[in-house]
């Protein structure tokens, strides 16, 4: 990027008010270069990428401490490879103290400390009170070395050094790209970390960080391998469904639910977050479900049971068929799983008495195997005592009662939004209403499709 001859950004010396500014490039030039050479179409993305590069310190604005890229005439300078983050610097506070101290020694307006830097220096002086003399000496030594350098070179080096510290000791309020997630800090993630000082200071009093503390994996024992073998056996014996079926089912599921996904299709009547109108939520919470909601109950028994109104209607239907004890049992077992531990045993007994015991008032129909297992479980009652029974009952409801429910008048009436018809007249009007609402939802879909493709 810096190589001018082979199509890099134009780095030049700019004549400013009193002096020349060496070795700078404008923000716009950098953005243009990024877009051209990295095939980025969107300026915003080029600026984002450029800002990330700047935040890490590979180039920096010459008259600001804030490390972002702006698409204008602001001047930037490239960082010296010595200071690149790829060298895995983790500079100590002593180095930072030397740097700040050094700055105060030089009588240059452009090197004056900013407020936060002055605060930092004061804090460091307190922290390093005992070895401050040493730090002061180092700073003086650095100043001497710097004085020997060529004026223009010094300007450049000073700014690069400042940019380095802007990365590692950022301005309050700026992103610190050297920050690590504290959860990952414990581990030696960076074995190439450079522990040397920026200014070549060798200080024996610098605390030695504890040696590599990664947990060396202990050698696997015979038990470990046996456990692994039994796990592998379970895996091998497991019946796996073909990928094609899985892929189809995923497609089917997402397709079915996409119209209910507010991030994909606009909900009716409107998305409360956009319109500030809470009607949608009122409809969802109401005891009188609308057709949209009722349609979802037809997707699976799980969906029907998830909606409180769905549960209610299914229960009503089962009552009409004199098999409501199945659903009541299923609901009771679900509730059992949420009970506090001390109540579990009593609740479990109650459920047994109500649904399964000899002469139970709401006796459910279980196959002999599940019955056996459950009666064993109930001797030591726990949250999962009825697991087998519940699964069996669920399958029963799903394959038998549920499909009848979907065909029942209770469900169909709600689905087609039929009001209780007193006369032929009433029914025709409802049919009209239905066709109109179906038409509306279709138009709605077409509109959404149009919007998405534009």
């Amino acid at each position, binding site marked *: 990027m810096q190589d001018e001859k082979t199509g890099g950004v134009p780095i030049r010396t700019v004549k400013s008010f009193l002096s020349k500014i060496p070795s700078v490039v404008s923000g716009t030039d950098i953005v243009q270069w990024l877009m051209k050479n990295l095939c980025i179409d969107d300026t915003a993305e080029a600026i984002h990428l450029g800002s990330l590069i700047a935040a890490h310190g590979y180039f920096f604005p010459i008259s600001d401490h804030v490390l972002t890229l702006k698409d204008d005439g602001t001047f930037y300078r490239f960082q010296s490879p010595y200071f690149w983050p790829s060298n895995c610097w983790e500079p100590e506070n002593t180095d930072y103290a030397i740097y700040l101290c050094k700055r105060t020694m030089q009588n240059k307006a452009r090197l004056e400390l900013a407020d936060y830097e002055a605060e930092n220096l004061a804090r460091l002086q307190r922290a390093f009170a005992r070895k401050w003399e040493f730090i002061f000496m180092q700073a003086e030594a650095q100043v001497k070395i710097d004085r020997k350098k060529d004026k223009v070179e010094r300007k450049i080096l000073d700014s690069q050094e400042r940019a380095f510290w802007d990365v590692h000791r950022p301005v309050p309020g700026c992103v610190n790209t050297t920050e690590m997630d504290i959860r990952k800090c414990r581990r030696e993630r960076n074995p190439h970390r450079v522990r040397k000082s920026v200014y070549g200071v060798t200080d024996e009093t610098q605390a030695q960080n504890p040696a590599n503390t990664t947990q060396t994996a202990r050698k696997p024992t015979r038990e470990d391998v046996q456990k692994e073998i039994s796990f592998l056996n379970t*895996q091998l014996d497991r019946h796996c469904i073909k990928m094609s079926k899985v892929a189809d089912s995923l497609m089917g599921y997402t397709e079915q639910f996409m119209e209910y996904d507010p991030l994909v299709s606009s909900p009716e009547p409107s998305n409360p977050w956009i319109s500030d109108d809470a009607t949608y939520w009122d409809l969802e919470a109401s005891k009188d479900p609308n057709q949209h909601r009722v349609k979802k109950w037809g997707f699976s028994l799980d969906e029907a049971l998830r909606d409180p109104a769905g549960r209610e209607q299914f229960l009503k239907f089962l009552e009409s068929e004199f098999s409501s004890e199945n659903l009541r049992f299923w609901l009771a077992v679900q509730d059992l799983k949420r009970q*506090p*531990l001390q109540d579990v045993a009593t609740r479990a007994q109650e459920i047994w008495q109500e649904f399964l015991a000899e002469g139970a008032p709401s006796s459910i129909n279980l196959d002999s195997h599940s019955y056996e297992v459950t009666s064993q479980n109930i001797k030591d009652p726990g949250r999962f005592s009825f697991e087998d029974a519940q699964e069996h009952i669920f399958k029963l409801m799903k394959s038998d009662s549920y499909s009848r429910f979907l065909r029942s008048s209770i469900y169909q009436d709600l689905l087609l939004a039929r009001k209780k018809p007193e006369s032929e007249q009433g029914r025709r009007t409802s049919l009209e209403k239905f066709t109109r609402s179906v038409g509306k939802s279709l138009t709605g879909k077409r509109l959404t499709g149009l919007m998405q493709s534009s």
Partner: protein
Amino acid sequence: MGEMEQLRKEAESLKDQITAARKAVADATLPDTVSSTAVVGRVQLKTRKTLRGHLAKIYAMHWATDAKLCVSASQDGKLIVWDTLTTNKVNAIPLKSSWVMTCAYAPSGNMVACGGLDNMCSIYNLKGKDGNVKVMRELAAHTGYLSCCRFLSDSEIITSSGDCTCLLWDIETGTQKTTFAGHLGDCMSLAVPGDFKTFVSGACDFTAKLWDIRDSNCTHTFSGHESDVNAIAFFPNGNAVITGSDDATCKLFDLRSDQELITYQDSSIMCGVTSIAPSLSGRLILAGYDDFNVNIWDSLKAERVGVLAGHDNRVSCIGVSTDGMACCTGSWDSFLPSFSFKGQDNVMRLCKQNKQQYL
């Protein structure tokens, strides 16, 4: 041949058999199956609300089941319950330890939980008699930081920790009931599908594991990631799991075919995934990254269909509300003052983190 040698050979042969068996069921790939489906149209979400009030990095957030309230945890030592519609703070709970890394809302809405470097999970009762929010329980048994916690009900909670284990607790007695051990690295996150039977966890050993709550066994292990699995969530159909990792990819694993279905990656994305959440239908997957963006993926076609770029720092957490209406992101944000850096009032403005809610 020693016994260890024999056992090792047995394990290796089983692994080979499993690989062969998995290949046998891989009669189609997801990309092939959906080749005729169109990509979902470009998704553009706008920030509708910004929740301001935290003073330091936000590490976690979790929606309540009513889809209006949510809780967030920040390293300023506060747990805040927000009414997202009005952006008001319903509760601002001061924490004993400010190094909090996770938070959770109970499905009933009665409690919230949080934990972090204190190695404990603290449970707060929001519906106390006198209206004050107090610590209800402090669950201490982990020997590492608490990375994630999720309520099963008002009686039970599952926690994952940097000590490589997950624990199931009984809240009433404050004791651990089951230990789920098996991960070889810090457990970073977990997800519960709500059926009380299973949960999944992602860890720094690059794998995700599915656990049976009843017998504490790990029933599935999903590998494929090349770095720490930071985030994990269930696909809405309950049969698949999505994971996000430091290797800059997200993956979809299916439970029934016990293998990876597809990877969500792009050559332009080089930084880790910190958080992940599916939309209601599962067609969209929203993932937060270290490069301050949230990418929205079409889950079937594995293409990026949107970007949320409103944060100024790493996106640390993301959540889609239970009704799928809105998505909330939290980050390590800080404001950049709009004027120069002189003057004392900078100190007031610095490091104000905010959460953004997108729709």
